C-alpha cells in the first residue's frame, strides 16, 4: 500500500461512535479527545454570540457538561458536531437571557440607562456601527447571521443546530442583511 494511502487511513476523522461509547463507560481520555475535536469551534461560536470571554468560557463548559450528561440520548442521527452546536446555541441564548435580566435589574438599581442597551447614536466608524446593528438584531436573525456570514456554517447546518427549517434560516439571514443595510444606509449617502 502506498505510504500516502496508509496515512490517509490513519488520518480518518475520529471514530466518534467509539469515543462516545467509551465516554459512556466513564473514559476520561475519550472525553478529552472528543472535547479536543470540537471545543475550539464551539468556543468560537459561543464567543461570537455572547461577546464576553468569561461568559464564553462558562457557556462552552456548560455545553460540554450537558452534552456528556445527555450522551446516552444521542442517537447519532446527526453528526456529534451538529448536536453539540445545537446545545451550545441553546445554552448561550438561555444564558444570555439570564445575564440580560440580571443586568437590567442592576441597571434599575444603579439608575444607569446606558448599561446593557445598544447605543443608537451616530457613529462614524463603520465597524462600530455594524457591531451595534448586529447587536440590535432579533436573536434568531442575529444567530443566523453570525453562523452563516461570520462563522461560515451552511444553511443546512444552521437549520440542524437551531432546530428550524432551512428556509427559515435563509429568510432570517435575508432579514438580518436587510436590517444591516438599513442601518448602514447613511454610509452610502456619505
Amino acid at each position, binding site marked *: 500500500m502506498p505510504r500516502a494511502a496508509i496515512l*490517509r487511513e*490513519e*488520518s480518518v476523522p475520529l471514530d466518534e461512535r467509539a469515543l462516545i461509547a467509551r465516554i459512556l463507560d466513564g473514559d476520561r481520555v475519550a472525553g478529552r479527545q472528543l472535547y479536543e475535536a470540537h471545543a475550539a469551534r464551539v468556543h468560537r461560536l459561543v464567543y461570537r454570540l455572547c461577546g464576553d470571554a468569561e461568559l464564553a468560557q462558562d457557556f462552552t463548559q456548560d455545553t460540554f*457538561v450537558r452534552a456528556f450528561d445527555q450522551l446516552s440520548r444521542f442517537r447519532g442521527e446527526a453528526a456529534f458536531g451538529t448536536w453539540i452546536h445545537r446545545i451550545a446555541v441553546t445554552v448561550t441564548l438561555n444564558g444570555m437571557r439570564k445575564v440580560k435580566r440580571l443586568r437590567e435589574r442592576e441597571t434599575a438599581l444603579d439608575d444607569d440607562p446606558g448599561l446593557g442597551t445598544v447605543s443608537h447614536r451616530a457613529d462614524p466608524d*463603520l465597524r462600530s456601527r*455594524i457591531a451595534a446593528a*448586529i447587536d440590535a438584531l432579533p436573536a434568531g436573525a442575529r444567530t443566523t447571521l453570525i453562523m452563516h456570514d461570520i462563522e461560515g456554517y451552511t444553511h443546512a447546518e444552521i437549520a440542524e443546530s437551531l432546530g428550524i427549517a432551512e428556509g427559515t434560516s435563509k429568510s432570517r439571514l435575508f432579514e438580518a442583511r436587510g436590517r444591516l443595510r438599513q442601518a448602514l444606509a447613511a454610509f452610502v449617502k456619505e
Partner: protein
Amino acid sequence: MKEDELDERTREALRGYRVPPAPPLDAMWQDIEERHFGAPVVSLTDRPGSGDRAGRRWSLGSPSWGVLVSGIAAALIIGIGVGRMSRGIAPVVPDNGIEGTYTYWTANAEPYRQATTEYLGQTVALLTSLPAAARDGQPDARFVMQAGELLTTTRLLLDSPAAASDPRLRNLLEDLELVLAQLSRLPSEHGGTELNLITEALEQRDVVPRVRAAAASISSDD
C-alpha cells in the same frame, strides 16, 4: 461611498465582529472533567495522609532507579524536543486575533499535513489525560493501547517525506516516539508511579500547550 465598496467594507467589518480570543482549552476541560467525570484523580504523590511530599514520593512502592530515570528522561527528552521545535519559529501577526500562526511547515503534501495535524491533536489529548490515566496507581489498559496506536502513527510519519523535509518536525516526532514507546510499554507494576513522574515533568515544561501550538501552526498553514 458606493454600494459595492460598502458591501466589501461590510464583509470586512463582519469578520471583525467579536473576534474570539484563544480558547482556554485546559481550564475549560478541568471544569468539564470535574463536573461530568467527578473530581480529578489525585496523583500518587499528592495523596493525603501519606506524610510530606518528599516522604510520600519515596514511599510509593519504592520504584527502582531505572523506573525513576526512565520516566524523567522521557519527560526531559520530550520537553527539550518540543522546545527545539518551538525555538526559532518566527510568529507572524495573527490575521484574526485568535491565535498566532507559524511558518515553518513547508511540506507540500496535503495528506501528510492532515495526518500530522490529527496525530498531534490526538497526542495532545493523550498527554493531557495522563493524570486521569494514572487512576488507582496503574495505567489504564485502553490508555496504553492508545499510546501504542499513536506510536505506530509516529513511525509512519517519521518515515514520510513530511518529516524528511522538516528537521524540526522530525526531531519532535523522534522525541514523541520515545515517550509514546515508554507509555505503550508501561509495566503493570510501578506503572502508575512512572506515569506520574512523566506527568509532573510534562506539566512543569508546558509540553502540551507547546505541542498544541505546533499542531495549530501546521493545520493553519494552508
